[in-house]
């Protein structure tokens, strides 16, 4: 079991990013192809969670997943443990909170893919879903990476929501952002500085890696004819 807050954060961010790919790509994909008149309302709803302060959002999430809410009791019945103050609870909350940071760049990426490529795939018999998976997604790598990076980093630094839904339990919900906060509150500035530095160095390393690889993708596919 992971007890180090940094590792826990990384695990959380990785799980959340992965889930956001799973949820965000179909959602953004649907938004990019639907001809629904009111799709902009859905786009707006997806972006809404950002405008609430995280702790407040956390409070509302907590209310709606606590065991006496319908969602919470359903979860309790199925999995035998409560959602709040657990790692799965953190995941649910972070996914909700970071959703717009994934969906928005995904959508921007999908919308900039030439419509004719999709049309070509359709006439080659590929279903809309297959076209989306094999043509649109691979042509939107920069957007997907942006979304992935934003949501990964955002989850790493997430604090308010995680604090409220997680309850700061060492080894299960005490992620690194909370532990740094605690250190600052306890006026342990030196320790806080060290933890922050570790987090920054790690993040810098990961982000650099992602961006450097992304760059390479474009070198393999030169843009000049």
């Amino acid at each position: 079991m992971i007890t180090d807050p940094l590792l826990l954060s990384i695990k959380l961010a990785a799980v959340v990013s992965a889930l956001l790919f799973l949820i965000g790509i179909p959602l953004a994909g649907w938004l990019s192809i639907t001809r629904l008149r009111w799709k902009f309302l859905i786009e707006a709803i997806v972006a809404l969670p950002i405008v609430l302060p995280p702790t407040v959002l956390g409070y509302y999430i907590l209310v709606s997943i606590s065991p006496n809410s319908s969602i919470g009791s359903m979860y309790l019945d199925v999995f035998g443990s409560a959602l709040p103050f657990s790692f799965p609870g953190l995941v649910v909350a972070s996914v909700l909170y970071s959703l717009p940071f994934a969906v928005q760049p995904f959508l921007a990426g999908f919308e900039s893919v030439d419509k004719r490529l999709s049309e070509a795939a359709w006439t080659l018999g590929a279903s809309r879903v297959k076209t989306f998976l094999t043509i649109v997604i691979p042509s939107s790598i920069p957007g997907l990476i942006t979304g992935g990076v934003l949501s990964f980093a955002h989850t790493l630094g997430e604090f308010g929501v995680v604090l409220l839904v997680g309850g700061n339990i060492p080894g299960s919900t005490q992620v690194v952002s909370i532990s740094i906060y605690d250190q600052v509150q306890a006026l342990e500035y030196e320790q806080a500085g060290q933890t922050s530095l570790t987090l920054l160095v790690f993040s810098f390393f990961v982000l650099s890696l992602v961006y450097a690889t992304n760059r390479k993708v474009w070198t393999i596919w030169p843009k000049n004819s």
Partner: protein
Amino acid sequence: MAEKLLIDIQKDFPGRQVSIQTELELTPSWTVLFGPSGAGKSTVLRCLAGLETPDDGEICFGNEIWYSKNQKTCVTPQQRGTGFFFQDYALFPHLSVKKNIGYNLTEISKDEKNKRIARMVDIFDLSKLENRNIQSLSGGEKQRVALARTLCRHPRLLLLDEPLSALDNPSRIRLRKELRDLLRQFKIPVILVTHDRTEALSLGDRMIVMNHGTVLQDGPIAEVFSKPNQKTTAGIVGMENVFPGSIREKKDGLAIVEINDNLLEAANFGLDTGPVMVGIRAEDIVIRLARETNSSARNQLRGTIEAVVLEESLVRLTVNCGFSIDALITRESKEEMKLDVSREVTLSVKATAIHLFPH
């Protein structure tokens, strides 16, 4: 009775309308959509592929209703199973040449798939490019890949939007020949958009001439070329003597071609006996008053002048020699030989001036 493709659609654009009404037999034949830039050719093709929804009318492919305004039906592009060649290629930039060609070939076994791709690579001379990525290809290379990709699927109706227009001359001539042969085995109807006369003549059985969003003429290709129904059409297709004929025999590098019971000798560039389209430019026909010998002009036809029309600095003669043929000569020649209606003349044509388009 062969099934038919019924097209009767109208598509509105701001300030412009494209409409077409025609019926094509679903036999392995070639229909050419011909017309100048902006005529609406691509629009018609996109409606047939299901990429554009017409604003009115219907499209029936045999018994299948592909589109009907009244019945509110519009079949998806996937279900139509047409092959579509895009004017600007629309190749997948993230896939290799090979993967582009084999895209979505899922219904067949892997072996069969590889074989088909290999055949396409071979036909379109792409062997050195197989694993290249699309962005590094030159314009012509891209076009060949796009053609290969479209044909690889054995579609049941092939829609080609100017497939050869960006190719260089040698490749174009080679592919034009091969395209027909190649498609013969697939036994599918083809609709070809082009604004190239030679391409239309080489490939088309039937021709639909469009301009400003409407159909000007629609008929067998020789008829449209030889008898344009109006001046605009004539201007668009250009004037030509075009006759359906057939190669009777071949000897010593000459092809003996029969047109309406007349035999002509044509230089033979490797065509087989069988039906051909015969084209003779009006300006290539030499008129003289008597038969002559000792000339390299091998074909001599006797006929009577039916019409004399002044055309700018030239004179167009229509001569009946069992079939009507046009000749273009200078005014001076006309004066010198005193040519006029009902005068009997000899037309001579060099074997090399008789153009045979395989059919």
